[in-house]
């Protein structure tokens, strides 16, 4: 369960950004979360609310965009989205491939702020 420290990092990052903008209030953090990031969405949402308590972000929301895993198929020469993270193969031709092109994201993409 490392979601709490992940949440604390995001809150620090957002608070810094808000301070740089003259003490703006942060209403929400937008996050892209890959299925292969190693972070569980539900645990992160729970941790976020706990971690916000007593900070300038108390009452803010965490908006998560989940990113499915995409791999590159060397046969089709194209990207393909995985049906399951238990089976790394092209959904078109079935060729196994380890080449992940998306799905490891753990990235803040935006802040909803009030200046």
């Amino acid at each position, binding site marked *: 369960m490392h979601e709490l420290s992940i949440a604390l990092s995001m809150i620090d990052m957002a608070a810094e950004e808000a301070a740089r903008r003259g003490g703006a209030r942060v209403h929400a953090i937008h996050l892209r979360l890959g299925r292969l990031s190693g972070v569980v969405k539900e645990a992160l949402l729970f941790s976020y609310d706990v971690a916000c308590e007593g900070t300038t972000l108390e009452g803010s929301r965490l908006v998560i965009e989940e990113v499915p895993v995409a791999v590159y198929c060397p046969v089709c020469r194209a990207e393909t989205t995985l049906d399951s993270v238990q089976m790394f*193969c092209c959904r078109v031709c079935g060729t196994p491939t380890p080449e992940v092109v998306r799905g490891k994201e753990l990235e803040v993409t935006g802040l909803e702020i009030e200046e």
Partner: protein
Amino acid sequence: MSAPPRLVEIRQKVLKQNDLLARDLRDRFHAAGVFVASLVSSPGAGKTALLEKLLTRLREDGWRVAALVGDLATDNDAARLARSQAPVRQIVTGTVCHLEAAMVEGALDGWSLDDLDFLFIENVGNLVCPSSYDLGEDLRLVFMSVTEGEDKPLKYPTIFNTADVAVITKMDLAAAVEFDMTAAHASIQSVRPGMRVLEVSSKTGAGMDELVGFLNKTRATKAFEMSAVES
């Protein structure tokens, strides 16, 4: 009356600090010519037992080796590993369930990396959290023991995906627990097609030659790549 909230776009990796520090560490390791391998597994898969054998063996072969070992609460593992006569340092993580680059950096304090050929980093026993953190290692080995079940990779695809090599441990028990090797290999290949798999027993020593050979070869390839970059 203040304006309504607006969306400001920023793009920042949440673990940017860790990633930057891991990159610095990797540069330091390469500059010193030390090859760094990390070990991840569930608790009790045999990381420490294998590492003790590995450190002893590599020292006998004339390599200069050292290890960092993460543990939630005790220094038992460091005491076990110290029997190999190699320098060993414990990283007690407290309640933190994984190692981070900053912990590795802190633990290296006072060590001369130039005096090492191999550095091993044993992560906290956990197949979930360590997957998110780059430690600056050249190679990540994920261990699974035959007593854990053949479908472990399917349950923890993320860690198998961040690792470079899978090591199946406790091979001496494989027959006793009716371990299905074909199913285990299929599980690994399903979540990480093409992944190199090694089978070892720390108890009997079976598979150790292959593991040591693999590490030496990988280190040599890395050293060659680094010198090619420099020249």
